[in-house]
């Protein structure tokens, strides 16, 4: 008998941290159409969760929570590897300049007061999400240059005859980047990346990216 597991469409993931169940429900309802929404009720739950394999694209964090408050939660989250580049937006019911300054200086990217307007929340999340992704790509590229080593001498030999753009793309192919990731990292359109990849294949007489990667071994 044939059976399958349908793959969920890949949405960006939002983690909401708030001790107010009503707010969690309301936020979830607002965001679930555009995002994969997950919720926890305390700062300590958020920290435990991110210490496992879960990695959201953005975190909405309530300031006033019992136990670990928003500020302390943010500081604890930033200690976790890979969470450093995830944008964190504070949610608060009270606007106080001092608190807002404290939140932003802790490393939050924005401060949204409750109750929030749906369109504004979505628009601000979108901006921070895109910025966050770009930062993570750059951060990953830096880490990659330390962890995954390309034989630079071979790279120089192989990249003879390639333009500067083609060399940048070749390096990312060797690091295992997809076309979409290369586009995001280099701020090129997907179609342009595809065109450059095709040009590299032609110039280097290969037909697969794995063949290119192997050339650099």
């Amino acid at each position, binding site marked *: 008998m044939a059976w*399958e597991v349908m793959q969920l469409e890949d949405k960006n993931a939002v983690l909401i941290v708030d001790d107010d169940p009503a707010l969690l429900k309301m936020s979830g309802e607002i965001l679930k159409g555009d995002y994969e929404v997950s919720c926890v009720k305390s700062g300590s739950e958020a920290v435990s969760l991110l210490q496992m394999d879960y990695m959201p694209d953005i975190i909405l964090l309530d300031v006033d929570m019992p136990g670990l408050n928003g500020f302390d939660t943010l500081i604890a989250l930033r200690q976790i590897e890979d969470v450093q580049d995830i944008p964190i937006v504070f949610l608060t019911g009270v606007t106080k300049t001092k608190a807002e300054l404290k939140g932003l200086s802790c490393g939050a990217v924005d401060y949204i007061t409750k109750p929030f307007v749906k369109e504004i929340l979505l628009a601000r999340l979108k901006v921070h999400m895109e910025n966050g992704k770009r930062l993570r790509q750059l951060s990953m590229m830096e880490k990659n240059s330390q962890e*995954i080593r390309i034989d630079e001498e071979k790279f120089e030999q192989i990249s003879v005859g390639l333009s500067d753009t083609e060399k940048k793309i070749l390096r990312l192919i060797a690091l295992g980047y997809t076309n979409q990731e290369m586009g995001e990292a280099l701020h090129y359109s997907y179609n342009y990346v595809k065109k450059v990849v095709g040009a590299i294949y032609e110039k280097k007489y290969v037909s697969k990216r794995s063949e290119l*990667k192997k050339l650099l071994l």
Partner: protein
Amino acid sequence: MNWPIQGPIPGIYYANARLMRVVSDEVSGDLRIRVVFDEREEREIVYEGMYYSQIDESNVGLVITLATEITPTQLIEPEYRQAAARLYDECGADEVFLKDMIKRGSRLFIHHTDKGGYLVLAKRLIWKKQK
């Protein structure tokens, strides 16, 4: 909404599917396969963001008994060793490279057949809607 969160876990994607067609677009990075279930129901499956595939046109006719997802550390297991050796031989993908790709969202799919396992390293597996 998920209460509590469950992280992604290796899953089983499909079973008992005969390969009817394989189209690998290495420039775009997509692998499209057409399979038939129970010799009746044809479906198209796309592996988007494909970096590497051991499935190609020469595999048409093969029956995929099980398509699952594995982690890089599982590649040392005896049942995956042949596919792992081929992966390393064909693109030099070692554990560091694979772990980095998984970290950035790629998945290691293994397709079990009577001729052994076939790996595909891609971002996602999408079922195309039947027309």
